[in-house]
């Protein structure tokens, strides 16, 4: 029986060797309650086990991580695993409701640490993702004239993209590390919301009910 303090995890990846590897790296603070090889299996497992954390491959048969994030992003914390930060779907997956992503080559201790923090609700934001999100909001500002981010949020996002840790950002801006985290969470929320609004706008413009 797993210790009570452990984090309940659902692991989803279509390659068993990856699930084995990640499970081995997680150590005893995590409790893998279910594994899945497809998006649908992952969604079923999440519904059944109500995990604290879902570690999900971006590319899986049957819709991949985006489908999982879109379906379950509001019920649980989903971290995407990806081979490459240059993947086109990465931003979509995060916008769909994942709280962040990890590159598959991340060394074991770092992976464990990042997932632990993710399970506690801290967004797993990397400089690359921050750069993508910054670009996305700039594109939005250029095309619609709207500026969804506050000055402070933009500042925080730029710091993250430049490679600063939340702690360092807090020290530079004279705010608490927790406040930095809140800003990042809000930025993700706004990204999520904007994507939804964009979809609704698209649907209205094209007469889709």
């Amino acid at each position, binding site marked *: 029986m797993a210790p009570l303090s452990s984090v309940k995890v659902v692991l989803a990846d279509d*390659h068993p*060797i*990856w699930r084995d*590897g990640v499970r081995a*790296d997680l150590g005893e603070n995590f409790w893998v309650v279910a594994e899945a090889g497809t998006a649908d299996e992952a969604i079923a497992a999440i519904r059944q086990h109500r995990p604290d954390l879902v570690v999900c491959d971006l*590319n899986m048969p049957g819709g991949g991580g985006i489908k999982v994030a879109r379906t379950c992003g509001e019920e649980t914390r989903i971290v995407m695993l990806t*081979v*490459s*930060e*240059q993947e*086109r779907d990465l931003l979509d997956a995060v916008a769909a409701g994942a709280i962040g992503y990890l*590159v*598959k*080559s*991340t*060394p*074991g201790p770092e*992976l464990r640490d990042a997932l632990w923090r993710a399970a506690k609700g801290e967004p797993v934001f990397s*400089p*690359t993702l*921050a*750069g993508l999100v*910054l*670009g996305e909001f*700039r594109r939005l500002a250029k095309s619609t004239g709207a500026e969804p981010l506050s000055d402070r949020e933009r500042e925080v996002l*730029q710091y993250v*993209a*430049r*490679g*600063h840790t939340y*702690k*360092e950002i807090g*020290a530079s801006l004279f705010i608490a590390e927790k406040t930095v985290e809140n800003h990042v969470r809000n930025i993700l929320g706004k990204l999520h919301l904007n994507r939804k609004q964009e979809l609704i706008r698209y649907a209205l413009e094209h007469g889709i009910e």
Partner: protein
Amino acid sequence: MERSVLQGLAAFRWGAWLWMATVLTVSRDDLRRPWLAVGLVAIALVVTVADTVLLRADPGALLRPGPVAAELAVGAALVLCDGWAYGPDHAFSTSQSLGSVWPLAGILGAGVALGPLAAAGAGVVVGLARVGAVVANGASIDSGGRVLSLTNTVVFYALGGAAGGYVARLLRRAERQISAARAREEVARTLHDGVLQTLAVVERRATDPALARLAREQERELREYLFGVAGGQGGGDLGSALRAAAARYEDAFGGRAQVIVVDDLPSMAEERVAALAGAVGEALMNAGKHGGATKVTVYVEPAPDGGVFCSVKDDGAGFDPAATPAGQGLTRSIRGRMEEAGGRVDVNSRPGSGTEVCLWLP
């Protein structure tokens, strides 16, 4: 592609033949030798039908010199026959002649099969057949208008053939490029799911740092081959130069260096790209040599003033800038490069929280 072009050509051939039959019917009273005209139109019909049958059975045959030459010969004969089939001066009257459109199908076919030059040559031959028709008719080519009219026919057929051949060549080239891109995409997808994932496993689980480094190098090279240095990563020349600098850092120190490009960068002169990339390279070397960094982030974005802002942040030991006199070894080469290019440098560091070198280039 080839098949649809040949299908289009077949439709054109049929339309042209129907027009020819119409002309034959309407102008039957002008004919001096109706049997010759009817015979030639019948041969054209045979060619039209044969080409259509061939298109179904063996489309490749339509591109071989034999059938192309046969159709051209019939086309030229049709134009030439004007001279015997109609009365004198018919070539210069306003009435339609038999072989004005149908021979063009053969010329276009030559363009598709043999290229624009051959088709232009075929056009000249068919055009000269009209000169033969005029001579056979006993009409004189004495006025400038008549010479111009004949030349016009030659030019028309030759240009038509050249244009047809050229378009076919372009289409073929585009088709080749598309299929090459598709093959590459297919390879990329396969390697992405297989080899790149495996390299990532090796990188993550190798206990030997040299092996992990090798896997990372291979992954980077494969990625560059598959997606191109600029492919999907953006940043133009500067982005590529920064990524190259980051790769050199990884090779030299075994740490990780990532390059973040936000937004489209302004286009920059070569020496400015070199100055900025050189300064970034120096900052990376410092991070590896003095800071003992394991992770470096190179960030670049367009600055509001139209220039570029770039930062190099490491997770190394850091230092106390107050205790380190300005212009010392660590920043001298960076500062020198940037000031020469009209930019400026700012170095932020605290012991224990790494170093960040900020670079502005207007």
